[in-house]
C-alpha cells in the first residue's frame, strides 16, 4: 500500500509533463489514424484544397475544443451581455484582450501539436503541394526533371504518373523533406516563443517563486473546498424545501450569499502587491464587498490558468 502511494505521488508530482506527453501521443495516434483511414489524396487539381483542409481543419477543431474546455473562458463571458462593464471595466479596457490572449495561448497547444505531427508525417503536405499550380513553385520542384513533371505532378502522391519510378520517387521524397523541415521549424519556433514568454512573465512577476508555488496549492484546495461547501449547502437547502413542501410547514431561514456577493465572487482575480489575498473570495471575505471595485494592479495568469471545469 505504501509503495503504491509513493508511486502515485511520483506521478502526481509530474502531472503537467505526463499530461503534455499524453496529449502528444494522442495527437500522434489520431494523426496516424486519419492519414491511414480517412485520407485519400484525389490526385487531381483538387489536391491543394484537399491537403490544406486535412491539415488545418482538425487544428481549428482542436482550437475550439481548447476554448470550450478552459474555465477562464466561461468566467470571462458569463453575464457579459447583461453587464458589458464586467468585461470592459472602467479605466482598464485592455483587461479583456489580455485575458482572452492568455486563453488563446493555452488553447493553441493542441492545434500546434497536430500541425507539427502532420507536417512531420508529410502525407498531407505532399498531397497539397503536388496540386499547387504556382509557376515559381513548379519550377523549383520540377527543376532538372522531365517535361511531364509540370503536367503530372498532381498524380505523383498516388504513384499514377507516367514518369519513371526514380523520378517520381525523388519528387515524393523532396516534397516530404520540405514538409518535415517545415514541421521542425514549427516546433522550434513554438518552443522558443513559449520559453521566452514564460521567462518574461516570470521576470515581471510581482510574486516570489515559493509564494507562487503556495498559491497554486491554495488555488487547488479552494476549488475543492468550494465544491464541498456547494454540495453541503445545496443538500441542506433542498432538504429544507422539500420537507416544508411535503409537510406543509414554514421554512426555517438558511443564510446564503446575496446575488451581488455571487457576482463579486465570480470575477477574475488580479493580484495587488500591497495586499495579501490569494483569490477573489479571500479578498471579499477580508475586505467586504467594497474591496472588489478598487484599482487592479498586476494580472497574474497563474491563478486561473490551470482550472478545469
Amino acid at each position, binding site marked *: 500500500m505504501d*509503495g503504491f502511494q*509513493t*508511486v502515485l505521488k511520483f506521478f502526481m*508530482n*509530474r*502531472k*503537467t*509533463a505526463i499530461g503534455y506527453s499524453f496529449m502528444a501521443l494522442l495527437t500522434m495516434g489520431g494523426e496516424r489514424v486519419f492519414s491511414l483511414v480517412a485520407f485519400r489524396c484525389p490526385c487531381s487539381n483538387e489536391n491543394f484544397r484537399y491537403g490544406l483542409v486535412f491539415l488545418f481543419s482538425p487544428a481549428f477543431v482542436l482550437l475550439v475544443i481548447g476554448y470550450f474546455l478552459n474555465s477562464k473562458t466561461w468566467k470571462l463571458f458569463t453575464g457579459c451581455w447583461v453587464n458589458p462593464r464586467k468585461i470592459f471595466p472602467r479605466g482598464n479596457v485592455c483587461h479583456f484582450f489580455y485575458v482572452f490572449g492568455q486563453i488563446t495561448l493555452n488553447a493553441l497547444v493542441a492545434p500546434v501539436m497536430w500541425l507539427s505531427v502532420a507536417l512531420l*508525417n*508529410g502525407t498531407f503536405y505532399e498531397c497539397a503541394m503536388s496540386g499547387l499550380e504556382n509557376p515559381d513553385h513548379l519550377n523549383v520542384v520540377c527543376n532538372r526533371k522531365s517535361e511531364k513533371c509540370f503536367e503530372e505532378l498532381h498524380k505523383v502522391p498516388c504513384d499514377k504518373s507516367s514518369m519513371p519510378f526514380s523520378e517520381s520517387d*525523388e519528387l515524393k*521524397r*523532396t516534397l*516530404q*523533406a*520540405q514538409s*518535415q*523541415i517545415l514541421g*521542425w521549424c514549427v*516546433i*522550434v519556433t513554438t*518552443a*522558443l516563443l513559449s*520559453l521566452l514568454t*514564460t*521567462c518574461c512573465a*516570470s*521576470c*515581471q*512577476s*510581482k*510574486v*516570489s*517563486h*515559493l*509564494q*507562487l*508555488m*503556495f498559491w*497554486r*496549492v*491554495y488555488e487547488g*484546495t*479552494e476549488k475543492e*473546498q*468550494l465544491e464541498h*461547501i456547494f454540495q453541503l*449547502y445545496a443538500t441542506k437547502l433542498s432538504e429544507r424545501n422539500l420537507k416544508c413542501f411535503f409537510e406543509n410547514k414554514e421554512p426555517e431561514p438558511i*443564510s446564503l*450569499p446575496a446575488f451581488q*456577493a455571487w457576482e463579486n*465572487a465570480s470575477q477574475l482575480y488580479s493580484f495587488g*502587491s500591497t495586499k*495579501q489575498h490569494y*483569490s477573489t*473570495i*479571500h479578498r*471579499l*471575505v*477580508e475586505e467586504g464587498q467594497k474591496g472588489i471595485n478598487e484599482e487592479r494592479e498586476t494580472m497574474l495568469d497563474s491563478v486561473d490558468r490551470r482550472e478545469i471545469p
Partner: protein
Amino acid sequence: MDRLRGALDFCIRHQTVLGYSIVSLLTAASEHIFSSVVFKCPCNSANMLYGSVFLLVPAFILLLLGYMVNARTWRLLTGSCPSEKCCNCSPWGTCSRYCQVLVPVTARAVVAPLTWIAVALLRANFYACAASGNSLIKDLICKDQGEECQNLLLKIPCDEKLSTKISSEFLSLEAQSQLIGWFLIASIMTVALISTCVSRCCSPVSYLQLKFWKIYSKEEQEHFEIKAKEHATKLAKINTNCFFEATDPAPFQTPSNEDWRKISFLYTFNSQEQYYSMIHKYVNTNRGNNAKFEEGGQNPTVLGFVDEAHAIESGF
C-alpha cells in the same frame, strides 16, 4: 511484498541517476523511432539541410525543454526584472550572478540533447544523408572524378550499392558518423568527470556534510509541500465558510509577501554560518530582520542541488 518494497527503496534512493537514465533511454528510443519511421533522405541537393535539421533541431528543442523543467531557472528568474528599487545594481554584477547560476543548470539541461546527437551519430542515418550533400566531403571523396561522382554521392543514402561505384580511400559515411559519435561520447564523459572532480575539489563543504545536506534538502521540500497543503486547506476552509455565512473571518496567521520573498532568494553559502537552506537562514536570523540575513556569500557549484529540490511543476 518485501522485495517490492526493497526495490522501491532502492529506486527512491537513487532517483536522480535513475531519472537521468530514463531520460537518456527515452531519447534513444525516440531517436530510433524517428530514424526508422519518419526520416527519408531526399537524395538530392537538399540532403545537407535535411540531415542537419534532423540531427540538430531535436537536440535544440530538448535543450529548451531541459531549461524549462529545471526549478533553479525559475527560482532565478521569478520577479528578478530590474525594478525601480534596484537603481544601484550594477549590470555586470547581475550578469555574473546569472551566469554563475545558469552554468550548472545548463550542465543538467545538456544531457538529453547530447544523448540524442550521440545516438543519432551512432545510427549514422542522419549524418550519412547530411554529409552526402556537404561540399567539403564532396571535394574530399570526389577529387578529380567529375559530375558523375557528385550525383552518385547524393544518391548513396537511398541505395547502398552505389557506394561501390565510387572509388575512394576514405571511410564510408556510416563509419565516419560512428567514429564521430564514439569520440563525442568519450569526450563528454571525460569533461563530465573532470568538471565533477573540480567542483568537488573546490567544495567548501566536507563529504559527509554534503550527504547530510542532500537528505535535508529533500526532507525540507517534502515537508514544505505537506505544510503548504495543510495551510492552504485551513485558509480555504475559513474563506469559503465566511463567504457562505456572511461572517467575518477569524484572524489567521499566514506569512506575508515580504516573508515569501525573503525565502525565495537563491541560496548562497557562507562558511561562518551553518544554514542548510534559505528557510533555515530566515528562521534563525529573526525572520530575516537580522543584518546577517543579507550578508553575501558564495555560490559553489557543488551546492547546486539546494535550490533544485523543489518540484518540477514550478516551471509551468
